[in-house]
């Protein structure tokens, strides 16, 4: 397993997607930084706080950017083996098909958290540059925890994308799917169904403003259920599918 993970890292060398994903990670902090600055110009008496920059950026990630960006990464990790036709080499070495999926899953969570941490530090950097107020250890600590937790929740949804990628062996279906999933979140967000719809559960669980009428356990069961079911389906399908 360690070998497979090591080669997964090796494969990222000079990979454009890694840089691109870091670029994706900077979008939310940067956008919100400018939005807050613009807001500040119109309302000069309100102070620019680190807390608002952290929260706004987080909101952006959990709602919009996260699902899409992480779907892109997920698809890249799996689809490149089909696209570059390297899967045949791996499977005839032989690397076990289950082992391969699990190793990539491991890389995926690391990658997602790298982007979350990267965004976190971009917020700090931008806040520092913009002279935002309220650099408190407590805020930094809580925000860091929230970012990591958000990354984890979004990760739990990635096996759905893995399954779609392996089924269709292309970028378009998984990207289309994640766009619809995101639209779904926007629609459901203000209803009570926020507790049941997998893609809005991370919103519910990481934003203090969101309250559910239902025990949070329901939502946990759903999101973990989605993870387990889609991953199991992926493994079963991938293990018996023909590789042309």
């Amino acid at each position, binding site marked *: 397993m360690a070998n497979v993970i090591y080669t997964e890292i090796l494969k990222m*060398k000079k990979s454009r997607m890694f840089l691109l994903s870091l670029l994706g990670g900077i979008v939310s902090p940067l956008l919100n930084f400018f939005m807050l600055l613009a807001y500040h110009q119109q309302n000069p008496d309100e102070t620019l706080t680190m807390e608002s920059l952290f929260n706004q950026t987080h909101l952006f990630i959990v709602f919009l950017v996260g699902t899409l960006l992480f779907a892109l990464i997920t698809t890249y990790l799996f689809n490149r083996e089909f696209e570059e*036709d390297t899967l045949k080499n791996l499977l005839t070495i032989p690397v076990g098909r289950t082992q391969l999926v699990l190793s990539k899953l491991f890389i995926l969570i690391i990658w997602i958290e790298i982007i979350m941490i990267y965004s976190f530090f971009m917020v700090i950097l931008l806040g520092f540059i913009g002279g935002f107020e309220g650099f408190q250890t407590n805020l930094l600590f809580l925000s860091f925890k929230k970012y990591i937790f958000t990354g984890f929740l979004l990760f739990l949804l990635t096996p759905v994308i893995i399954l779609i990628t392996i089924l269709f062996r292309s970028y378009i279906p998984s990207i289309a799917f994640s766009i619809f999933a995101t639209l779904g979140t926007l629609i459901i967000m203000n209803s009570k169904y926020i507790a049941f719809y997998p893609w809005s559960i991370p919103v519910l669980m990481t934003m203090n403003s969101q309250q559910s009428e239902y025990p949070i356990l329901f939502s946990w069961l759903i999101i973990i259920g989605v993870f387990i079911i889609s991953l199991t389906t992926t493994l079963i399908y991938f293990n018996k599918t023909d590789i042309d």
Partner: protein
Amino acid sequence: MERIIETENLSKHYGLQKAVNRINITVRPGEIYGFLGRNGAGKTTTIRMLLGLIKPSEGVIKIFGEDFSENKREILKRIGSTIEFSGFYSNLSAVDNLKVNTTLIGIKKKDAIKDVLNIVGLYEERNKTVGNYSLGMKQRLGIARAILHDPELLILDEPTNGLDPVGIKDIRKLIKTLAKKKKITIFMSSHILSEVEQLADTIGVIHQGSLVEEINFEELRKKNRRYIELKVSDDARTVLLLENEFGIEDYEVYPEETIRIYTDHDKVARINKALVNEEIEVSGIRLSEDNLEDYFVKLTEGEVIG
């Protein structure tokens, strides 16, 4: 071990199409087996099954004497392969691409990568990203990757595809060396008869999914040598005359007073005259059209291979 590869009624169906239809292949230790067939004959499909990439619809595969479906992992470790469209990570150099394999296989030998790159003549270009490699270079890198772990069996799918004449010659030499010096058994597919002809000990011809011929090359050559066929009134006396007057020993006598002569074709006029002088009646003289190429054309229904 009598047999390296043995298949029994191996088949793969795609819907109604029988891409591979009940083929029985036998590959013996140390030989080069040429798997010959036209485009779409089912070569790659067969190889995919031999490598466990697709599941047979029917049939059994035995490799190294063991059931493949039950010992897939252990068997694959002893095989090196290249397959149609087998790719590389285009963002990585040749060395890093091979490093993926040495890491996954757990090859400890320090110079393994250097050695195989030298063998295929890519060492100078080892640090170039494979995305910038030419087709022929990729083909050679594929072979390098296949022999990285000193396999006992090499399965090569059209190894000279896309190479220029010099490249083809190089690969041919390489394959020969691997077979003779390292005693690797080689199963290689091709759609070019002349390529297989110069390498293989045994060939299997696949046509529209069926194995239409599997034969030792020596035998095949014998079967397909050019000859002059004489129909005479007395074969015993003709044979005496051929041996004594012309020193011809390479001939065969067939029923109905028919004799095939495999050498000295330039003497046919003189032979005829001598026979007539001896009052042996010659009712027919025919130069065989058969050669290897024609033979395969026949096997594959009148369309040319390669």
